């Protein structure tokens, strides 16, 4: 079985066994295509949502998770410090106006101030980590 991936290791397609005759050789000729050959009895268990290809080692790996709680509770005037992977994108969701604000965070430590009582949702994105959404209740 062949697993195709982007330059960053994101899996986007597979071809099942038995491979068509000459398929692997044809793919090897195209230098713009990245792929690895893997053994799997259950082809659709390969999942680009939870797995990626280590582009250096050329192996299938599970995407790491961002180690944060799903929910935090703080009081108005307090701050919340969270550790995230460096160079993460923080997406602040505004449920009232259905808007999203994206902020790139070069530091691995983020301090969030609870200024107004409300519930806030923030999604943290950093490849190859699985996206993590946290909810902060400010009371």
């Amino acid at each position: 079985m062949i697993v195709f991936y982007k330059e960053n290791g994101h899996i986007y397609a597979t071809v099942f066994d038995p491979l068509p005759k000459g398929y692997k050789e044809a793919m090897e000729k195209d230098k713009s295509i990245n792929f690895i050959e893997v053994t799997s009895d259950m082809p659709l268990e390969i999942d680009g949502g939870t797995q990626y290809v280590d582009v250096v080692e050329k192996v299938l790996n599970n995407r790491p998770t961002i180690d944060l709680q799903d929910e935090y509770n703080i009081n108005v005037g307090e701050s919340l410090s969270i550790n995230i992977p460096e160079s993460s994108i923080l997406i602040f969701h505004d449920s009232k106006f259905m808007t999203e604000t994206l902020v790139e965070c070069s530091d691995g430590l983020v301090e969030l101030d609870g200024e107004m009582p409300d519930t806030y949702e923030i999604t943290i994105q950093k490849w190859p980590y699985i996206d993590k959404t946290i909810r902060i209740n400010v009371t």
Partner: protein
Amino acid sequence: MANRVLLDVNGLLVSKPTFDVLTTTENNLLFSSDYHKLGFSFKGAIQLTGYSTNEYLSFGKTFTTPPYVFFMYSPSSLDITTEMWVINQASAQNFRSMYSFYVAGSNYRYHLLDFTVSVDGVTVVYNSYTNMSSGFPNAALTGWMTVMATEYNP
């Protein structure tokens, strides 16, 4: 007992039980080498992720004409409750499927899947749409779209 198998300079014929291969009509044959066998020459899958996908998957060979291709998708979306099967037509190398349309009051969201079958591969373009301004959440598709290309005597 009826003659069941005939092998001569014209090829091989096998008839159904009780039918004489020397005299029976074609609809009573189990096999005839006069006809090609249609099979799958290629089986793969394209991953749909989030609100949009645009991916090309190569057949690894070049057909003389775009082959018939089956597309299958199992539901993993908020609005989708049934498995989808789509096959292109010989006259339509580019074709579109609207996979779901969900309406709640004046709000809506829907998915559009565009398929292009060429002589050397398939392209699947997926987008989801909603009237976001009225505050209705968009819906993403995730999971695999299975792609199977057919060929005579693969």
